[in-house]
């Protein structure tokens, strides 16, 4: 075993493919430069920046709970081995200074940045990385771990320490998107050992690490800030981590800010009020809030509102249940000609104008149009809003109003009438649902609105108890990361649940797939193990075209990112939210 590994490593070293290297290998701190295009200038140290948090973090241990608010705080406390470039979204070094991938695509060797210290002064090394991956992320009992991504074809990814500054991952098979997993936050072994199996605890005990009433000094990270105070229900305060490993172009230590505060404010309107009052310095807002804030900005308020096209984020879609309880509906919904006809009754322009105040664009099919690496132009497949044409298409399917009651009838004679399930507590779903209901009515299709809590949309989708649903799934930089959503039979492919295998990861019911679904299934299987980038691109392009033509779901719009920031601060780059490896806050400075 050991011998095999060392030969693997030698071959790996011989065929070195250095993907990216910033600065020289010997310089320990990372120099953050090259963002002039984003308006980034040299800042000055000092000042406090205040952000809003939607609720109290449920814990302070990132891998113990899935909690957006904890994610936002954790982003400032921890780093991963790699991170995104703020401008290009390319993966670049973070805690790992460089890495190599063996020619067979199975061995990833990371050279760690030297001289990095935890915020309590302890040295950071390979043991922390191995500990984080083997004891936390791959621990299936960790509630917010990611064990599934580290099991390929049922076999475990191996992680091992080569020496104090080198870590190696050996994969059972090639996985080209694996590098993106290396954005996971690295945790301090010296603080968490006692909660791990290695430290003698039970596997599930890791979830109990760092509860929300933990002593602040226990929470130790390598991130730009460290925890200084947590007042439940009111505020989380962070202060600058003096040991942070990034510097600006002139060599000034980052972050510029001396402090970063999160005010806990649950109500979005209250957040806006606090922003207007100057108690919050930056706020991400929705298209609905844009006009008011923009007006105030134009009238001379001390803040600016920024718009940017979004790569990440959740574009809404409508889906029809291929396995609807009513067999007549299930048959119609499974028919691609029906879904295409109904796309003609979907007034995207109006939704973008009225619901998003024009602050959204046409969507892609599984990939955001701004994603230059993977997006295939499917715009012509989106069709245009044309009720007459949609009506003719339905006529051609034999769905006509035979009894003259204003509602079209299915071939069996039943009215074409179904429920549209949507989230009532969202700023966009109710308005979109009403527009759809109206337009479909003009077409002679009766839609009954069925409102539920947005947080229940997915579980309702997966339960199969719905007919048409309005929901959203996030875009990611690499389609491989969204495989469970878009691959037929995947865990989140809920509009055709009868394809689902009995167990996650098992082979789905391929025999029941429509020919195009089978093609998409194969594409995702192939792309997952193809190492050539151009071949993967070709595969995913075909997938997007198949998606656009067959519409497993019908995407509606791609909302833009809108943020407002107080004029006192410079170097603002839109903060995407909880995207590990994308954190522009260290560059922000107080003027």
């Amino acid at each position, binding site marked *: 075993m050991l011998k095999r590994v060392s030969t693997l490593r030698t071959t790996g070293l011989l065929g070195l493919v250095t993907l990216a290297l910033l600065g020289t290998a010997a310089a320990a701190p990372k120099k953050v430069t090259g963002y002039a295009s984003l308006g980034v200038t040299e800042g000055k140290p000092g000042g406090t920046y205040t952000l809003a948090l939607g609720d109290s973090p449920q814990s302070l241990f990132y891998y113990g709970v899935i909690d957006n608010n904890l994610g936002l705080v954790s982003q400032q406390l921890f780093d991963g081995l790699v991170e995104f470039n703020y401008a290009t979204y390319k993966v670049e070094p973070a805690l790992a200074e460089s890495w190599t991938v063996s020619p067979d695509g199975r061995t990833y060797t990371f050279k760690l940045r030297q001289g990095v210290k935890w915020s309590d002064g302890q040295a950071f090394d390979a043991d922390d990385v191995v500990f984080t991956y083997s004891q936390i992320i791959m621990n299936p009992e960790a509630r917010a771990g990611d064990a599934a*991504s580290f099991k390929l074809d049922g076999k475990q990814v191996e992680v091992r320490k080569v020496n104090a500054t080198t870590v190696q991952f050996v994969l059972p098979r090639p996985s080209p998107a694996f590098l993106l997993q290396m954005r996971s936050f690295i945790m301090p072994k010296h603080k968490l050992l006692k909660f791990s199996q290695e430290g003698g605890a039970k596997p599930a005990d890791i979830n109990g690490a760092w*509860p929300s*009433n933990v002593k602040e000094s226990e929470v130790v990270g390598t991130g730009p800030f460290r925890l200084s105070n947590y*007042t439940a229900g009111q505020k989380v305060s962070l202060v600058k981590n003096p040991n942070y490993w990034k510097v600006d172009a002139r060599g000034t230590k980052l972050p510029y800010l001396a402090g970063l505060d999160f*005010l806990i404010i*649950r109500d979005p309107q*209250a957040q806006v009020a*606090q922003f207007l*009052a100057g108690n919050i310095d930056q706020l991400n807002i929705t298209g609905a809030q844009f006009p008011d804030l923009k007006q105030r900005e134009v009238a001379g308020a001390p803040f600016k509102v920024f718009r940017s096209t979004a790569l990440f984020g959740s574009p809404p879609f409508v889906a029809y249940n291929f396995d609807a309880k009513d067999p007549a509906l299930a048959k119609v919904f499974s028919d691609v000609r029906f879904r295409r006809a109904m796309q003609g009754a979907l007034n995207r322009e109006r939704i973008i104008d009225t619901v998003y105040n024009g602050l959204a664009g046409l969507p892609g099919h599984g990939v955001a149009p701004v994603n230059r690496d993977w997006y295939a132009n499917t715009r012509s497949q989106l069709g245009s809003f044309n009720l007459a044409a949609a009506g003719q298409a339905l006529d051609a399917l034999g769905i006509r109003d035979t009894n003259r009651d204003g509602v079209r009838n299915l071939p069996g004679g039943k009215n074409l009438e179904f429920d549209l399930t949507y989230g009532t507590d969202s700023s966009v779903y109710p308005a979109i649902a009403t527009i759809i209901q109206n337009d479909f009515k003009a077409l002679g299709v009766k839609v009954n609105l069925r409102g539920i809590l947005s947080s229940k949309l997915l579980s309702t989708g997966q339960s199969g108890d719905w007919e048409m649903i309005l929901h959203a799934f996030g875009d990611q930089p690499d389609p491989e990361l969204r495989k469970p959503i878009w691959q037929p039979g995947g865990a989140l492919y809920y509009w055709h649940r009868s394809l689902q295998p009995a167990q996650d990861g098992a082979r789905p019911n391929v025999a029941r797939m429509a020919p195009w679904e089978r093609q998409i299934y194969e594409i995702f299987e192939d792309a997952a193990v193809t190492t050539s980038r151009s071949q993967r691109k070709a595969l995913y392009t075909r997938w997007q075209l198949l998606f656009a033509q067959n519409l497993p779901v019908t995407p509606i719009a791609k909302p833009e990112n809108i943020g407002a920031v107080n004029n006192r601060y410079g170097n603002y780059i839109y903060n995407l939210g909880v995207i590990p490896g994308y954190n522009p806050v260290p560059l922000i400075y107080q003027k």
Partner: protein
Amino acid sequence: MLTYALRRILGMVPTLLLISVVCFVVIRLQPGSFLDQYLEDPRVTRETVESITRQLGLDQPAYVQYLTWIRGIVTEGDFGFSFVNGRPVSSLIWERLGWTVFLALLTLLVSWAIAIPLGIYTALNRYGPGSTVLNFLGYISLATPDFLVALLLIALVLNFGGTNVGGLFSPQFIDAPWSGAKVLDLLNHLWIPMIAIGLEGVAGLMRQMRASMLDVINQDYVRTARAKGLAPRRVLWRHAVRNAVNPLISLAGLSLPSLISGTIIASIVLNLPTIGPFLYDSLLNKDQYVAMTLLLFSALMLLVGNLLADLALAWADPRIRFE
């Protein structure tokens, strides 16, 4: 009186048990599960959901879950743990109880201090312009939901360039040690929730006080007192008000559970660190032990409030006897 109180307290036990069963059933009947939020995340697989279900004991039959919970309370005073926070329920509630009690008692005191004199005034000057105006304002504030008042106040403060638009402190004072400046900052923030939450209470209490004053004023004993030639002031305070205030004492007892659930929306809008939003969240997330504990606590408050009101009534009104 002591035996009476003891008997009442003992009687609470079966009532509370029954209420806890009802709470548990209601929470279980709610659709969805705590694990719903986990499904949305691409990191979570079906195996993870299963292991979390096992960790939380949600794979056990409902009655086992209930009995385990009750046994914990009775034998160890352990109210279970929060699924969401992974911490014991009692410590979480404890963290939020201080401000909740402070705000509730303060609003209660303020609204009583304003409402009772106003009620007396409007009853005595039934047709004067002053009481007409007060009655009118009372109707309006009764009809306006507290969160709307809160939103209006926030808009008003913003318009005048104020920064105290939510919460109890300015950001820099939240985790600062107590000082004169911090107290001033608190007072500067406190008046908004006082008005928003208290206003409705004031209007209701005022109407109640006015009605019972009008009842009492024409009673025989008041007329007798007047006829005996007692000073009008003495008749008013010694006889009329003392009797008219009785129904309000029961009302005060009933208002104890509002500590927990009375001001949920206003607390969210005003961003107050109280228990209300915590209960709301736990119900939404199906964080069952937190929700059950809070509901049980609320029921206990109601029972205790009733008992206290009865005791206070007996003390205030010599006509009431315990047997």
